């Protein structure tokens, strides 16, 4: 657009161009403001939707981690995991999740009933499996967490009880019961220290909640399998596939919604800006009547639209980031991270829509004689 100005080769013309641009906005404040308002709202809504679309998957993935472990590491052939396995695991995860060790034995009650006893890190279990309904978590040594079905057998009314494994007897207090509706209900859980002192058995299973996308989890599984050749590393398909499915559907719905909303916002801008440009057909006619070349007039209108688009996009982007952050806090209780990476898209889209809505009326006006417009017909 500056080329036509530069071809005249003088500074005053450039300043005239800028002045006309500015005066156009100042003199018709109301119309310019309403066009800018439409632009800002459209850019804000689009920014919020794009930002949500990108960030919501990470947010939802975090919610899905409440389903517990998505990877299990099991020692092969009923052996136990090597001592430094947990350390290795944690170094692989490096903050991308958590790993909880489990050791299992089948012990006997004094009257000969068999019961599965598990040693684990109870603090970690509490974080990993938050669906466990526990009346009271064990705090002291030799306290056990008893499954609801096991409790009626070994410790009715929360009485202290004895368990025997390979001739070794342990005396335990029942701290509370756990209810899950699965095999945990028939088990007794001890802290790892109590368990090892009593049985001498090392953990054989590691339950891992790895966070991130399916690709991230796959990478973690591969890395773990390489690091721990004596163990079998496998994904919990039930959890991984359920997550992938629900997340996929949510994402698809959200993207359909985002597309519709952005389309509507663009429409809003289009109709407002077309009105705005049409409204200025007298300026257009006067400039032409005074001998302004078509290119100059066109570039003035285009520049106006582009500036409007850019300013609208900038303000709208900031508002949109705020809106997305608010939605994140309202729904997920965690702020949506601002994605400044989407700014170029929003800016480009806004300018494009603005230019499009300027070109359309210009194209229509070009065919009209200035005299007819000036006569007000």
């Amino acid at each position, binding site marked *: 657009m500056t080329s036509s100005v530069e071809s005249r080769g003088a500074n005053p013309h450039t300043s005239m161009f800028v002045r006309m641009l500015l005066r156009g906005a100042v003199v018709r404040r109301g119309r310019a403001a*309403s066009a800018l308002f439409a632009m800002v709202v459209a850019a804000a809504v689009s920014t919020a*939707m794009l930002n949500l679309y990108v960030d919501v998957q990470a947010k939802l993935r975090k919610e*899905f981690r409440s389903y517990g472990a998505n990877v299990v590491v099991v020692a092969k052939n009923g052996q136990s995991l090597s001592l430094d396995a947990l350390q290795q695991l944690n170094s692989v995860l490096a903050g991308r999740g958590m790993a909880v060790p489990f050791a299992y034995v089948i012990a006997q009650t004094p009257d000969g009933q068999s*019961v599965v006893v598990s040693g684990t890190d109870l603090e970690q279990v509490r974080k990993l*499996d938050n669906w466990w309904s526990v009346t009271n978590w064990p705090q002291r040594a030799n306290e056990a967490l008893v499954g609801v079905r096991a409790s009626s057998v070994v410790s009715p009314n929360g009485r202290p009880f004895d368990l025997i494994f390979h001739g070794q007897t342990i005396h335990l207090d029942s701290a509370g019961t756990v209810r899950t509706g*699965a095999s945990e209900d028939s088990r007794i859980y001890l802290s790892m220290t109590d368990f090892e002192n009593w049985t001498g058995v090392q953990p054989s299973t590691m339950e891992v909640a790895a966070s991130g996308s399916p690709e991230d989890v796959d990478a973690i599984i591969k890395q773990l399998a390489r690091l721990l050749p004596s163990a079998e590393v496998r994904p919990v398909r*039930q959890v991984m596939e359920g997550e992938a499915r629900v997340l996929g559907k949510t994402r698809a719905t959200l993207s359909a919604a985002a597309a519709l909303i952005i389309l509507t916002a663009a429409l809003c801008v289009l109709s407002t800006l077309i009105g705005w440009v049409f409204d200025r057909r007298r300026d257009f006619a006067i400039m032409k009547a005074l001998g302004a070349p078509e290119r100059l007039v066109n570039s003035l209108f285009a520049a106006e639209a582009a500036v409007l688009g850019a300013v609208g996009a900038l303000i709208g982007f900031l508002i949109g980031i705020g809106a997305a952050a608010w939605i994140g806090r309202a*729904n997920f209780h965690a702020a949506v991270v601002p994605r400044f990476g989407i700014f170029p898209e929003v800016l480009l889209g806004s300018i494009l829509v603005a230019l499009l809505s300027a070109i359309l009326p210009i194209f229509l006006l070009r065919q009209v004689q200035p005299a007819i417009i000036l006569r007000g017909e």
Partner: protein
Amino acid sequence: MFARLVYESFRRQKRRKLLAAIAITLGVGVATAMIAVATDIGDKMSRELRSYGANLIVTPQDDTLDLQIGGVDLKPPSDGAYLNEADLPKVRGTFWHHNIVGFSPMLPVNVNIAGNNTTLLGTYFAKHLTFGKDEFVTGVTITHPWWKVSGAWPNDESQDVLLGERLAARLDKKPGDEIEVANQKRRITGTLSTGGAEDDEIVAPLSLAQSILGKPGAVRRLYVSAMTKPEDALARRDPKSMGPELFDRWYCSPYVQSIAYQLQEAIPHSHAEQIRQVAQNEGTVLEKIKGLMLLVTFAALFASALAVSAAMATAIFERRNEVGLMKALGAGKFAIAALFFTEATLLAIIGGMVGFGGGMLLAGEIGRSIFGDRIPIDPVLFPIIIAIAVLVTFAGSALAIRKAVTFDPVYALRGEG
């Protein structure tokens, strides 16, 4: 005269009216589609969440303790009590049977395969059952959607088996081979991959497991997959402590607790329990997704309301000359405003109706392409949507009409605005 003014305005300004009508149609269409999707997303997602598998388990009432480690059943098969297979179809007779997506009975038995003690798991794959006049299909293909078979699923009435993929690799067997189970050759229809203990097991039709065990009709446990309402304070209360009225409300809500209670009623000598890992998390995830869609729907409504008002404001702004002329000829403010509002209402009703139809189609398309199922639209929405369309069109026009009416006709007619 008034009617003629309105009529002529539509007849002579087809382009402008069409533009405004298109804006309203699109706005209403988007709003309708988004409202439909937002109201139905709970149901749709609830169904998708069933891909996590069963959320209820039914066990015999006086069962002995489970001895399960890593999904492997170590309990001697002779131990404990059993459910009766003949009672299972009664699940379809419970109050919330429409919410029960499927169920699978399980019966693990020990068999000797090539000198090793191996578990054979008897279950339904896609069993045809009848309850009264109600015919239905149920089994692990519905309740355990993450089970993958390479080859084919066995027929429930056959003696064919599936081999867990790790077991198949150990024994070097392929689909189509035969394997000796309980002194008889059985055809292997496929290998099963579950990512769990079943990968080391044989999975067979329930009747085969029962005949190996020598207990016809025996079922160790029953997995039930049901669509439930997220738990709230009422759901957690003990039904025994409720008054009759409250109990009815609890009983008639599809809480996982009340469905468990009804399953227990339907199947004699049973104990039904929610599988908390699946049941509890479902509510949390569902709430988040519903909340998200609700907020997004508000954004959509906001954007479409704005688009409609912008289009209306533009349409009226362009007609200042007309207003000036009318005022110069002596029309009152009221008459002019009435004319514009009548036009706006007409546009809103026409655009609203077309938009509602378009929105229905759009919602249907979204439902089909994402969920493979239609999204129904409550007819009650129709008057509400039209009312909103009229209101938004009014609001969008109001400011522009006010400005047009207060504008000095002299300037308007001179074309200076």
